[in-house]
Each structure stands twice: as structure tokens, then as C-alpha cells.
């Protein structure tokens, strides 16, 4: 109350004069944020939640997209879980995720460190060049790699002077897919890591250098711990994207409109195959199983992030 005495009288009069309009202003202040997020919320409900719930309903039917349908309960889920192709494609997808994530992140981080270091010249050139594969559509990239890996006429075999069936040997073909994933993804994560490295205060490194820490020690004890949240975020996002993998293996290993063989196919192929075959119920059930898998893995990863980040903050 003592502060009120310091306020000039004309200001108090003006405030008193505005009092009747105050409730309207407060209401606007409350509503305005919701108006800003309304376009997103409405489109999210219409474009994502609505169709997802519709698909959930479909997954309990034998609907073909038209004509009549019958409720079949959990039949679509049970048959999919009993279908060995489902487990094979799950295994394939897990392989693609595990096999490409670590090397890709390692290469991306290594390149980001190199480009950020004082050793690097022509930084703008390297930034653009390393990001370039990300600008190429995944289908186009897979088509280029298809010719690169050809058995009798491929560039790689021509260089090696051999006829290695990179794309048809069941043991080799998945590695060709992994190579494309690394080649395309590295540039994207390179940019993210470079941004993360830029945010690290140079004074910390300077201080460590003054204390006698060599380059390896500074990387291991300062840079990587500070980059940990970004690295873990990268692994989570990459995991979600990889579980929805479709274009690369199918363009590389499929032909003339057919999808990749099940032995190398990602799990999303079963959704697409069922949609192509007019089995909407089965496709929806597979889609929801995939959603549950991604949700569980994301939950586990976030738990991991939470504990690690808290650990690093302590």
C-alpha cells in the first residue's frame, strides 16, 4: 500500500477510468493463446485423431473400403500376430534401425566436430555438400543406388570387377538399404549436431584448455556430455522415423510395382500390402499394432532420456 502513494494522481485517475473495460481485456488475454493454437488443434483433430479413431474402428471389421462389412472383433489383430511375416518384418525394421543409427550418428557428429573445428576451411562448402543427400528424394536416391548395386551392370561391381548380388542375396540386400539410410540421414543430423555444438559456450572449452586438457579430453569430458540431450533426442526421432520406413527398401529391392520381398521388407509393407489388396480392416489392425510398438519404444527412450538428462544435470 505504501507504493500507491508514489504513483502520480493523474495515473491513478486514468487507471480508475479504465476499470470497466478490464474484464474484457482479461478475457481476451485468456482466449488469445487458444486462438493462436486453434488452427493446429483443429487440423490435428480433423486430420490425425479423427482418421486414427476411424482406423481403430475399421480394425475390428472386415471392411474392403466399400460395400457391407462385418464386425470381427480382434480377429485381424490375432491373425496378424500369428502371421510369421509380421514378426519377420518387425525383425527387419529393428535391424534397419539398429544397423544404421549408431554409424550414422557417429559420422554426423564426427563431421560436425570437424567442420566446427579450427582445422576446417571452406566451412560453407562442406555444410552444403554434406547436407546435399538430404535434399534428394528418398525414391530418387534408391533408384540411383539400384543402379549402383546392380549385379552384372552395377557401378560398384564394375569397380570391384566382381558379380556380387548386392540386391538379391538375402544376407547382403539389407546392408544396401542400411547404406542408403546412412547416406541420406547423415547430412540432416550433421546440421542438427552442428547447431548443438555452436550453442556450447566457447569459454568452457577455453577454460579447460587453460587447465591443460588436450583435445580428446575436451571432447570426452566437455563436448559430449553437453551434447547428450541433443544426441538422445536424435536417437529417439530417428527411431520413430525408421519404424515407419517404406520408400528406401521398396524402391531398392522391389520391381515393377511390387514391394520388397518380405525377408527384407519393413513392417509398414504389411499395412500397404493390405491396403493394396482391399483388406482395410487388416491394414488398420497392422497400423495400430505398429503404433503401439512405436509408442512403447518412444516411452522407453523418453524414460531413458529423462534419467540420463537428470543424471547429467546433477
Amino acid at each position, binding site marked *: 500500500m505504501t507504493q500507491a502513494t508514489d504513483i502520480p494522481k493523474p495515473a491513478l485517475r486514468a487507471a480508475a477510468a479504465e476499470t470497466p473495460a478490464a474484464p474484457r481485456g482479461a478475457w481476451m488475454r485468456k482466449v488469445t493463446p487458444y486462438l493462436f493454437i486453434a488452427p493446429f488443434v483443429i487440423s490435428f483433430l480433423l486430420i490425425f485423431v479423427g482418421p486414427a479413431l476411424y482406423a481403430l474402428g475399421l480394425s475390428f471389421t472386415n471392411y*474392403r*473400403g*466399400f*460395400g457391407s462389412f462385418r464386425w470381427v472383433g480382434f480377429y485381424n489383430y490375432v*491373425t496378424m500376430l*500369428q*502371421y510369421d*511375416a509380421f514378426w519377420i518384418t518387425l525383425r527387419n525394421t529393428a535391424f534397419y534401425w539398429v544397423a544404421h543409427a549408431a554409424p550414422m550418428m557417429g559420422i554426423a557428429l564426427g563431421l560436425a566436430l570437424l567442420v566446427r573445428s579450427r582445422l576446417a576451411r571452406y566451412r560453407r562448402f562442406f555444410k552444403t555438400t554434406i547436407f546435399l543427400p538430404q535434399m534428394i528424394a528418398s525414391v530418387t536416391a534408391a533408384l540411383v543406388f*539400384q*543402379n549402383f*548395386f*546392380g*549385379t*552384372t*551392370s*552395377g557401378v560398384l561391381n564394375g569397380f570391384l570387377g566382381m558379380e556380387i*548380388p548386392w*540386391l*538379391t*542375396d*538375402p544376407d547382403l540386400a539389407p546392408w544396401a538399404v542400411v547404406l542408403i539410410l546412412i547416406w541420406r540421414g547423415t547430412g540432416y543430423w550433421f546440421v542438427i549436431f552442428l547447431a548443438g555444438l555452436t550453442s556450447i559456450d566457447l569459454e568452457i572449452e577455453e577454460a579447460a584448455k587453460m587447465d591443460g586438457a588436450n583435445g580428446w579430453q575436451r571432447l570426452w569430458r566437455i563436448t559430449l556430455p553437453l551434447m547428450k540431450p541433443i544426441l538422445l533426442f536424435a536417437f529417439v526421432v530417428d527411431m520413430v522415423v525408421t519404424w515407419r520406413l517404406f520408400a528406401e527398401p521398396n524402391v531398392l*529391392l522391389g*520391381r*515393377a*510395382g*511390387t*514391394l520388397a*520381398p*518380405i*525377408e527384407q521388407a519393413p513392417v509398414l509393407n504389411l499395412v500397404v*500390402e*493390405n*491396403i*493394396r*489388396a*482391399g*483388406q*482395410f480392416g*487388416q491394414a488398420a489392425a497392422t497400423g495400430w499394432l505398429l503404433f503401439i510398438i512405436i509408442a512403447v519404444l518412444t516411452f522407453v527412450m523418453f524414460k531413458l532420456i529423462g534419467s540420463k538428462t537428470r543424471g547429467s544435470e546433477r
Partner: protein
Amino acid sequence: MRTKSTLTRRGLLRTGAALGAATLATPALMRRSYAQGAKPFEVWVWGGPDRFDGRLNSFAQAYPEEAGTFDVTVRSPGAHGAEVWQALRLALASGQTLPDVVMSNYIAVPEFAELGVLTDMSDRFAEFEDDLTPAGRSLSVYNDMFVGVPANHNIKTWFYNAAKFDAAGIDPTAVRTAADFMAAGQAYRSAHPDSYIMNLGDTPIHYNYFMMLSHWNDLTLANRDGSYNITSDPRFAEVFQLMHDWRQSGIAMPIDDWSPDWQPGFQEGRIGSSLIASWMLGFLPRFMPEQRGEWEIAAWPDFSHRGSEGGGPVFMFPNGAPNTDNAWEFMSKLHLSTEGGVIDWQTRGTIPGTTSALSQLQELASNVTRPADMTDEQWQLTPGYYYGDGFMDPIIAAMEDFQVFQYDPAAPAQLDIMRRRVNPYVSGNSTLEEALEGMQADMERQIGNPYAV
């Protein structure tokens, strides 16, 4: 001091305008309208709207006075036939206006016909029925009901390098049994160690199987009661074993059709012949123009001379579309009349389904001449220039044996399961029993009764 780059309002507006234009241009790429006349209709094709340009040109040549009376809207829901089926299902599900005519491979006809989606065109076909070849009829009909106009015929055709066959002492007309073919393959390998009589890799496309299975017109994967015949009918085992034996004996180059090595295989002379379908007529001149005159055409050997590669494309008419009459008039004139059939063969190489058009084109093919309005480049890509006079004779003869596999309404799903189970057997990674039992079990579990629609 370096200038800091910022996004100006003008730059933002420019970017927005570019994105907007790109968004508007995308559907335009999928759709093309020929607004000309008073008879509108909408047609769906796969592979891009320009795929229909050739048919419009053929129509304009065959019926120059009537071409301007049509207003054709062409839409292409995707690159492959499966995407057209998918778009049609979605259109049916959403209740939107249906296209007047849809191009589809015959393989999807049973699904839409069984569900009552297709218009019964039997009355309209009456005036053309007498002129229809048995092949044309088999592509037009499902369950004794006329449901579509045949747009082409995928006739089983054997392409071979005549000089290489001569050097190996192989006369294709003398190859009758499966054992003869195997012996011919081995003789070919002896004469040409770097070349093969065929190609068959680890992941054959479904048409490789169905071309063989369509040899029998009473063979079905499933019966109307939902029971499956794969393990009980020995003909499935016979076909799969034969293909396995070809692959494992070494007579086949281990690469698949449409793989990156396929075209170079022909170009480099490593593939000396191909048991395939008549659509290959147009591909060899593009694959290896320098081998003009070296390749000849024969019917498939007796052990599998009947059948087809999936029948062929058909124009089907969905029930309830607004302009069925206009679409039918255009399609019937183009593909069921003598003039339309001959012109479309001359300009695009499609094989008509009428006796009158076939006899005329056989005559034309016996003495191939270059059309006056054709450029050198176009002419060199024509089958007439590449294979020489009379190239249609063996194909028209093989048309006598044309028949379509008895597909059922779940055929699109069955193709994937068949490839999944049989490919490992053909490539030597599973047993015949595993292939047959796995295929039947998967179809029973994942599809159930295909007729319960």
C-alpha cells in the same frame, strides 16, 4: 564485417507463393482435361495422364470428325494398377462421383464384379459379340456378364536371338516338352558359355508364375466355398518345381525381370531368349536397337502354350457413373471397331480383340511399310522395323491359345503371398512342401474365403 542474412517480408511472400503454386501444380500433374466437345466423360488410368494421349490420337485418326465431340478428363491415381484399384475403393467408400471408365488389369475385375460395382454391359456388347475373338471375349466377361472393353492382350510370346539359337542347334518349334526346353537350355549354354536361354532370379515377379499357371483354364487357387487347392492340386507343384529346376540347373541367368541388370543382360547378349508376353514387342527395340533383325518371335513351347500374362488391361465401367454412355461410345469405337482396332495397333501396338481388326493388321504386318508422317526415330522403334515382315503371325497364332487365369476377388492379396512363399523355393532356400503348405496356410489365415465379400 559479414552481412547478416534475414528473411524479409517480400522473401517470405515469395516463398509462400512458390509453395502455393507447387501445391496447386501437384494435382494438375495427376489430371489432364481435353475440353473439346459436348460428350464429357472421366477416365482413370495408371502411369500418368499422358498415358491416355496415344488413345486420343488413335481415336482422332480413326474418327477425325467425331474426336472433337468428346470432352475427356483423364486422371491418374498412381504409377501402377494397384493404385487405381485403391483409388476406386476410396471413391466408393467416400461416396464421391465415380469415374465413367477405369483402366484396370483383368486381375482386379473379379473383386469389383463380385461386389456389384461394375455395370453389366451385355446389351451394349450385342452388336460386337459376333466379331469378338475368343481372347477378346475372355477379357470382356466375368461370370458370363460383359463387364469391360479389352484394351490390349498380353499374349504369351517367346522372343529369341535367331543367330544364337542356330549356332546352338535349337529350333524353337521343335521344343515341345519341359524336358525339351531344359535340353535346349543346356545346349544353348554349351554353345554360348556367357549367355543364357532365359533369366530367372531369386525374386521373380508374380507374372512369372501366373503365365505358367494360366495354361489350365480350370485351375483356381480357391473355390467358392472358401477351400483352397494349392496343396491338393498337383499342377501348382508341377509349375513351381519346373521353375525351381530351371533356376537351379543353371540354364537361367540369375537375374529378374525389371531388375537393374535386366536390360543390360539383353544389351550385352547374356540373355538369348525370353519366355514372356507380347508387350515385350515394344521393349526390345528400345533395349538394344543395334540388334535389329537378330531377334525373332515364336509361340511358347507346347508344355505351356495356353494362357496369358494376367489377361491384359480392361476398361471397366463403374455403376452409377454419370457419363457411362459417352465413355462406352468412345471405348467401343476405339477398341471394338475394325477401324479403331487397326489404327491403335498401328500407332501404339495394342492387339485388338476383334476378328476383323486382327485379319487386317495381319495383312498390314506381312508387308511392313513406314507411315508417311513418322520420323526416323519413331520408325526405328516400331516392331515392324525391328522384327521385319510377318512379325505378327506367331502372335496372332498364339492368340488362339489365349486364356485368362481364373482369378478370384482376393487376387491382389494372393499375388503377394504367392511370391513370398514360392520365391524362396525357386531360389533354393526352402522345400516345395514348405512353399505349397505355407502359401495355402497364409491364404487361409490372412484372406479366408475370397468370395465372402
